[in-house]
C-alpha cells in the first residue's frame, strides 16, 4: 500500500491537544478576522469573555495569550529581556482548562452544598497556584529570575502555602501532594462518617492566588506593574460553580492586578450570579464579551484556507509536489450543470416523466418532452418542466429559455417575451438552480453531491474544526491509485490536483453522519435534540424535493411564539441546549420570521448536517417554516412524518380529538 495514504494532514490535532510550541507552529492570527484587538486582550484589566462555538478557535487564542506561548514568540523574535517583553505586553497569562469530568465530579460527591463550594474553590486555588508555579519555575530555569529573587520568592510562597520548600520544583512537588490529599478525600469521602470535618482540616490555606501574585509583584521588580491574567478555558464545565468564579471576576480591581480571560461556548454562562449579596455580573461593566464570529463568509474562507494550507505543508510529499492549496485541491466551487449531466447520464429523459402529471395523452406528452428538451443542461430542462407544470404554455417556456440563453432578456423591456425571459433567468440563476438539482437527484434516486472548497466552507458553519473534519474524512477516501496518479504517474485527470468529487462527497457525508449520531449521545437533552434534528431535517428534505418548487431551498425556521417557549422551563432549556451544542444556529439579528410576517428570531440547522438530509447549505430569504409551540414539543418527543410536520395545522384538530378520546376512554377504564 502506498505510504502517502497514511499522511493525512487533517488527523486530529486541535488546539486542546497541542503543546504551546505546536500552537505557534499552526498559529494563523485570527485577530483581524474576528476584529479582536490583540493589545487589549493582553492589557485590559476588565475581564474578557471569549465566546465561540465548538471548534471556533477559542482554545488557540487563549493558549496563545499564555506565558509559554508568548515566551516562545519573544524568543523567536530575538527578544533578550523576556520580563521586559511581558512588561510591555502588560500581563502574564496562566492558562487553565476546566475539564468536563472535573465539573461533573461534584455531582458524585456526598457532602453538603456549602462544603462542595468550598472544595471547588479550594481546588481552583490549588490548580491556578500550580500554573503560576510552573511559570515561575520556567522563569527561574530560563534565568529570567536571578538566584536572590527566586530565593526570596520561594520563601514567601512557601509561607503562603504553609510549606517549607527551598525551590520552585520542591514547591510544585509539595503542592501536588496537597492536591493528591484532596483527591484522596474525594475518593473515600462516602466511606467516612466524619468526612466533612476531615476535609476542613485539609483545606488550610485561602486566597492563595492573590497572595502569591502580590508577592511576585513586590519581589520581582520587572513585574511590579504587571497584570496577572488567569485564563480559564471551557468555563461551561464549571457548571453551577461558575457563581464562585463570577465572584472573583466581579471583584477585579487595580489593587490586585488580577484579571481574567474566559473561554466559553454560546450559552455556556449558566449564571450571572455572584456570591456577593444580590450582585451579579454585568456585561461591559464587570466584563467585556467578544464573540468569535467571522463578519463575512469571505473572511472565514480566507482564514480556513490559511489554516488548512499550513497543515498540508507539514506533509513532505505534499510540499514537494505542490499539493498544498486546499482551494485548488477541493476545487473552488461546485459545478451544478456538470453534476446534473452526471445524474442523468444513464437515462437522460427520465425526469420528463414528471410531465405525465399534466399530459395523460401519449402524443401530448411526447410533444411536450421533445419541445422542452435541452440536452446540454438537464437543469434547464427541469426548470422547463416546472414552468409547464405551473401552467405556463410550452411555447412560452421554450421561447423564454431561448431568449435567456441568447442573453436577450430585460426586466423593463416593452416586449412581453423578453420580460418573461428575464423572469426565466431569475428563476434559473437566482431562485431555483440549487432546488432543481435536488429535485433531479430525487427523481434519479441519487443524492446531491457536496464538494468544493466553497461548499465545505459553508458546511462547516464557521467552525474551523468541522472544516478540518470534512477535509480529514475526504483525505481518508483517497486511495493508493489517486496518490500514484498524482505523485508518480502524474496522470492527466489529476494534473489540476483536484480530489475526485466522489471522495469529497463521501467525506462530507461521513462527517454529517458522525455529527448527527453524536447529537443523540449528548447528556443535555440528547434524545430530544436528536429527534428534533431528524424531524426538521426530514421536513426540509421533503420541501427540497417538491417538484412544484413552491418554497425553494427552505432551510430556516422560526417559532410562532418564542415568548411562550421562554416561559416554559423545559422547552427553554432544550432550545438553549440546541444552540449551545451547535445543533441549530440563531441568526444574529431579528428578521421577518417568514414572508409578510412579524419580526423575530430565525434559526437554521447546523449546515454540517446538510449532506445527511440532502438539503441546501445556502441561506435564502423568503419563506421560512414557522413552528408552533405545541408542534415544537411534538417534534422534540416524537419521530414525525415530514408531511405531518408540514401539515400540522390540518392534523392538529384531529390530534386533539384523538387525545381527548384517549382521555375519555382512559376514564371509562378507570371507572
Amino acid at each position, binding site marked *: 500500500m502506498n505510504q502517502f495514504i497514511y499522511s493525512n494532514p487533517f488527523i486530529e490535532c486541535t488546539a486542546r491537544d497541542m503543546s504551546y510550541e505546536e500552537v505557534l507552529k499552526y498559529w494563523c492570527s485570527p485577530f483581524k478576522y474576528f476584529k479582536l484587538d490583540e493589545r487589549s486582550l493582553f492589557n485590559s484589566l476588565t475581564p474578557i469573555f471569549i465566546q465561540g462555538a465548538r471548534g471556533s478557535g477559542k482554545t488557540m487564542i487563549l493558549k496563545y495569550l499564555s506565558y509559554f506561548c508568548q515566551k516562545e514568540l519573544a524568543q523567536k523574535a530575538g527578544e533578550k529581556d523576556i520580563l521586559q517583553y511581558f512588561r510591555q505586553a502588560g500581563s502574564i497569562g496562566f492558562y487553565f482548562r476546566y475539564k468536563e469530568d472535573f465539573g461533573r465530579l461534584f455531582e458524585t460527591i456526598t457532602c453538603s452544598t456549602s462544603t462542595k463550594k468550598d472544595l471547588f474553590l479550594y481546588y481552583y486555588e490549588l490548580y491556578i497556584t500550580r500554573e503560576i508555579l510552573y511559570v515561575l519555575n520556567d522563569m527561574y530555569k530560563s534565568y529570567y529570575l536571578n538566584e536572590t529573587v527566586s530565593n526570596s520568592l520561594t520563601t514567601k510562597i512557601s509561607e503562603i502555602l504553609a510549606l517549607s520548600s527551598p525551590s520552585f520544583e520542591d514547591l510544585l512537588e509539595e503542592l501536588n501532594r496537597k492536591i493528591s490529599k484532596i483527591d484522596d478525600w474525594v475518593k*473515600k469521602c462516602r466511606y467516612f462518617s466524619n468526612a466533612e470535618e476531615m476535609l476542613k482540616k485539609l483545606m488550610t490555606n485561602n486566597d492563595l492566588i492573590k497572595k502569591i501574585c502580590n508577592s511576585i509583584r513586590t519581589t520581582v521588580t520587572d513585574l511590579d506593574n504587571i497584570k496577572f491574567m488567569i485564563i480559564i478555558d471551557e468555563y461551561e464545565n464549571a457548571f453551577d460553580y461558575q457563581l464562585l468564579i463570577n465572584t472573583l471576576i466581579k471583584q477585579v480591581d487595580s489593587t490586585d492586578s488580577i484579571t481574567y480571560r474566559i473561554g466559553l461556548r454560546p450559552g455556556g454562562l449558566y449564571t450571572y450570579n455572584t456570591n456577593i449579596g444580590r450582585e451579579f455580573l454585568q456585561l461591559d461593566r464587570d466584563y467585556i464579551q467578544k464573540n468569535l464570529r467571522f463578519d463575512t463568509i469571505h473572511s472565514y474562507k480566507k482564514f480556513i484556507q490559511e489554516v488548512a494550507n499550513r497543515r498540508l505543508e507539514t506533509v513532505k510529499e505534499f510540499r514537494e509536489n505542490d499539493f498544498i492549496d486546499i482551494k485548488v485541491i477541493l476545487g473552488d466551487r461546485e459545478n451544478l450543470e456538470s453534476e446534473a449531466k452526471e445524474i442523468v447520464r444513464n437515462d437522460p429523459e427520465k425526469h420528463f416523466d414528471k410531465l405525465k402529471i399534466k399530459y395523460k395523452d401519449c402524443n401530448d406528452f411526447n410533444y411536450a418532452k421533445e419541445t422542452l428538451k435541452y440536452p446540454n443542461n438537464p437543469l434547464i430542462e427541469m426548470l422547463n418542466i416546472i414552468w409547464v407544470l405551473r401552467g405556463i404554455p410550452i411555447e412560452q417556456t421554450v421561447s423564454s429559455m431561448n431568449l435567456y440563453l441568447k442573453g436577450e432578456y430585460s426586466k423593463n423591456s416593452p416586449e412581453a417575451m423578453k420580460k418573461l425571459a428575464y423572469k426565466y433567468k431569475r428563476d434559473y440563476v437566482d431562485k431555483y438552480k440549487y432546488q432543481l438539482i435536488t429535485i433531479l437527484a430525487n427523481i434519479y434516486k441519487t443524492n446531491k453531491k457536496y464538494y468544493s472548497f466553497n461548499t465545505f466552507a459553508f458546511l462547516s458553519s464557521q467552525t474551523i474544526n468541522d472544516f478540518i473534519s470534512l477535509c480529514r474524512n475526504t483525505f481518508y477516501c483517497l486511495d493508493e491509485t489517486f496518490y500514484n496518479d498524482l505523485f508518480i504517474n502524474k496522470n492527466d485527470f489529476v494534473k489540476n490536483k483536484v480530489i475526485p468529487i466522489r471522495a469529497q462527497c463521501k467525506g462530507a457525508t461521513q462527517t454529517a453522519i458522525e455529527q448527527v449520531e453524536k447529537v*443523540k*449521545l449528548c447528556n443535555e437533552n440528547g434524545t430530544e435534540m436528536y429527534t428534533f434534528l431528524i424531524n426538521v431535517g426530514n421536513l426540509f428534505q421533503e420541501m427540497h424535493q417538491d417538484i412544484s418548487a413552491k418554497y425553494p431551498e427552505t432551510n430556516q425556521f422560526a417559532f410562532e411564539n418564542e415568548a411562550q417557549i421562554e416561559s416554559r422551563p423545559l422547552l427553554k432549556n432544550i432550545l438553549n441546549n440546541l444552540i449551545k451544542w451547535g445543533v441549530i444556529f440563531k441568526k444574529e439579528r431579528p428578521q421577518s420570521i417568514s414572508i409578510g410576517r412579524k419580526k423575530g428570531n430565525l434559526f437554521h440547522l447546523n449546515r454540517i448536517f446538510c449532506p445527511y438530509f440532502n438539503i441546501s447549505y445556502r441561506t435564502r430569504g423568503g419563506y421560512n417554516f414557522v413552528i408552533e409551540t405545541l408542534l415544537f414539543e411534538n417534534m422534540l418527543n416524537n419521530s414525525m412524518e415530514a408531511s405531518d410536520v408540514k401539515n400540522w395545522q390540518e392534523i392538529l384538530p384531529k390530534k386533539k380529538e384523538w387525545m381527548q378520546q384517549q382521555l375519555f376512554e382512559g376514564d371509562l377504564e378507570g371507572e
Partner: protein
Amino acid sequence: MNKLYEMYEVDDRIYKKLVELDYFFFAASCAKRCYKGVEFLTQQQGFLKDVVVFDYHKFRPKEFNTDRGEYESYYKYRKLKRITEVQCRNEDDAVLHLNTMPINTGSRVGLDITALSIPDLFRIIYVLKEIKKVEDIHIFYTEPKHYYFKDGLFSSYEFLVGERKNKPIPEYFTSGREDKEILVLFLGFDRVVSKYVHDRVMPTDVVAVNGFPSYMPKLKDISLINNYELLSTIGKEKIVSTKANNPFSTYNTLCEIKAIYKDYLLNICVLGTKPMALGACLFSIDNKDSVKVTYPYPKEYNISGLEEGASLLYYKI
C-alpha cells in the same frame, strides 16, 4: 509488568483448586449467562457461605416486556437458597452496603462480575481492595455466547442507550500532576460512543485499545468498524491491542502505555469487556496518582438481551 496471575476456565475438575468462599457477590440480570457462576458454585456443597445479590433497579426488565421471559430470567436469584438481597436504587447503594459488611483482610471474597456495569465493577473492587483491604479476591466471569445486535452486526449494537454523561468514577478521581492527559479508551461495540467520549474528555493525547482475540474472531473487526469515527480521527498509530478476556493482559498493556506516556495523567475509559475493565481496575488501584477513570454513564441500559453464556472463567486478583 508481567505480573504472575491465576486464570482458569472453571469446570468440575478445576473448581476443586479453588478455596471455599466466605462471601460471594453477584448482580441480578436478565441475561441468562449471569447466573451460570452462582448456579455452578452453589451446587458444590459448602463452597459458598454468605451469598449476596445486588439487585440494581437500573437493570430490571421493563414493565412492558413481561412476555419475553426477562422477568423470569431476572428474578431467578429468588430461587436460590440462603441469599441476601441488596436493593440498589441509587448509584451508591451497593458500595455503601459493602462498606458496612464485616469483611476484613483475610476474608475469602468471591465476586461474579458478569452482570455488573463497568462503573459498579470498579467501585466494588475499590471498596474491597482499598477500604476493606481484602488480600485476594476470587473473580468469576461468564463469557457471552452471542452479543445482542438489533439490526445486524455492523452498526447496531446498543447496550447503553442514548444520552451519556461523561463523569469520573468518584473512587478513581485524580487531578494529575500536570495538564497533560492521555485518554486510554478500551473500545466496545456501541457506535460513535468512543468518539463522543473523546470529544468530551478533550485529552492531550489518546490511545484506543481493541480487544483481541475476541470471543468470536469477527468481533475485533466489528469493534474497529463501529469505532470508525474515533479511529479515523486519531490515526492508526494510536490503536493497540490487548487480549479481550484476560485482565492481566490489559494490565500489562496499560503498563506499556504508562511507560511511553510518563508525565501524563492516564484517563482510562473502558467501553470494552468486563475482563478488560477488571485489568484496568487493578492497574488504576496500583497507580492511584497517575490514573483517573471516567465513564460515559448512560441514561438507561438496554436490558433486552437474554444472552446465553459460554465458558465460566476464574481470576484471582
